[in-house]
């Protein structure tokens, strides 16, 4: 393929150093992958291979231990997300890079429509316009309208996940990181989510995703990257020594 990737991950590794316990926990190890606009790259591998860690490293929720995370911005600049200053990362999160995790973090007193519209509020969009877009997204997710005005605190796992997805998709990022976005959805809702992700792909959104089910990987992924379980602690220690 001659297309330029929107994200190039080169030799990314991450381990956690727990001072209190005097332990080093290895996670992702020498990960290399490319992500392209309008394509979905799936991360596969056994539990503990550091799949989620790669996503969190790209979003900078985790600091990198080594490697480069080269992201090409809308203006064509290449930024190493592992090294970029905090304000640049915050700006990219606001405008270009979205993250949908398995868990919904929302205030127990915030209405679902506002939870979903939050990324648009942060972009400075007016309240009612942002809520209109949030409503469309919630409807597309098949979340009953009677739930829009109340907090997702009491929702079922699948409902929460739909809210989470709606929030991740609403701001239409250029690069979307998806961590098991369909994990607790029934088959019908999974189909809807799959169609939404296909739509986003057709719109040119680049995606890096972790799916639980191999058949989803088969259906959705344009590229597949398999991660190896991490090296033993001793080997990591030898490497950093």
């Amino acid at each position, binding site marked *: 393929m001659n297309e330029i990737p929107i994200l190039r991950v080169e030799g990314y590794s991450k381990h*956690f*150093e*727990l*001072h*209190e316990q005097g332990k080093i926990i290895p996670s992702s190890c020498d990960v290399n992958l490319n992500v392209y606009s309008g394509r979905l790259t799936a991360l596969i591998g056994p539990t503990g291979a550091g799949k989620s860690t790669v996503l*969190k490293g790209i979003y*900078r*929720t*985790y*600091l990198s231990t080594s490697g480069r995370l080269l992201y090409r911005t809308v203006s064509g600049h290449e930024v190493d997300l592992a090294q970029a200053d*905090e*304000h640049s*990362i*915050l*700006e990219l999160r606001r405008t270009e890079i979205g993250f949908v995790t398995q868990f919904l973090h929302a*205030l127990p*007193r915030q209405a679902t429509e506002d939870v979903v519209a939050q990324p648009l*509020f*942060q972009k400075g969009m007016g309240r009612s316009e942002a809520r209109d877009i949030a409503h469309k997204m919630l409807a597309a997710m098949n979340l009953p309208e009677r739930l829009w005005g109340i907090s997702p605190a009491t929702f079922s796992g699948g409902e929460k996940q739909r809210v989470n997805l709606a929030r991740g998709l609403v701001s239409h990022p250029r690069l979307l990181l998806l961590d098991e976005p369909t994990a607790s959805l029934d088959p019908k809702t999974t189909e809807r989510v799959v169609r939404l992700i296909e739509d986003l792909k057709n719109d040119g959104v680049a995606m890096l995703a972790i799916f639980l089910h191999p058949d989803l990987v088969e259906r959705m992924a344009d590229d597949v990257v398999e991660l190896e379980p991490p090296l033993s602690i001793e080997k990591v220690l030898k490497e950093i020594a």
Partner: protein
Amino acid sequence: MDKVLGVKNLSKVYGPGCASCFELTGPEHDTNICPNCRSVVAAHDVSFDLYKGEILGIMGESGSGKSTAVKCLYFDHEPSSGRATFFDEGRQYDLFNLNAAQQRRLANHRFGMVYQNPHLGLNFDITAGGNIAERLLMSEVDNFSEIRGRATSLLSRTEVLPERMDELPKNFSGGMQQRVQIAKALVTNPPLLFLDEVTTGLDLSVQAAILDLIMEIQQEKDTAMIVVTHDLGVIRLLAGRTMVMKYGRVIESGLTDQILEDPQHAYTQRLVASAL
């Protein structure tokens, strides 16, 4: 993005100070008292930038120097060394080289401060409305009905019943006093707001309402804020970036989610692990 504040190497020492003060204090020595001259190194080498519309959290236990840093910036304390530059409407102010009148002018017009203790932020001898009027009068607004109108709208914005504006602050609950303090801080539309442990000691439900109010104001007015707190929940809720302080030093800083999920320093790891 517009920079609002740039702080470089801010230090504050209480006491005579000596050549080894900075060498013999800090997290690696487990103290902020210089063993040589008994001076207290309240803050040392604090540097950061703050941008428009951004909330920076400063986290640490009591005595870590987090309030000292903010109080130096609001001119409550004089720093021992360091530089702070405030960028406002195309002008730059070298904060620690201004004369007293210039400092007062900035504190009254362009900065807002909300203290943990409402007695520091409010004059308890005059009414809630009077407290707000006082700040407006200092900002050279002297039309009575304009002052009254702005006080009323600010108090309703912070959900203090306007019919109570002629009461003394001592008649109010703690949460209400904080709301009056916030209204007073906001009445001049300051581009920079300091919040020093504003929800500490309040009931949980009152805390939540005050924090929601602060978030709404930040989104409405794009105010840059520095939030000083020992409460991880407040940091998580409000701050985009966070600095962690211990014994007067910044031991770690980063994006708030990174500080909470991947803390690097042993102290921060312990702090995060002790969250309820």
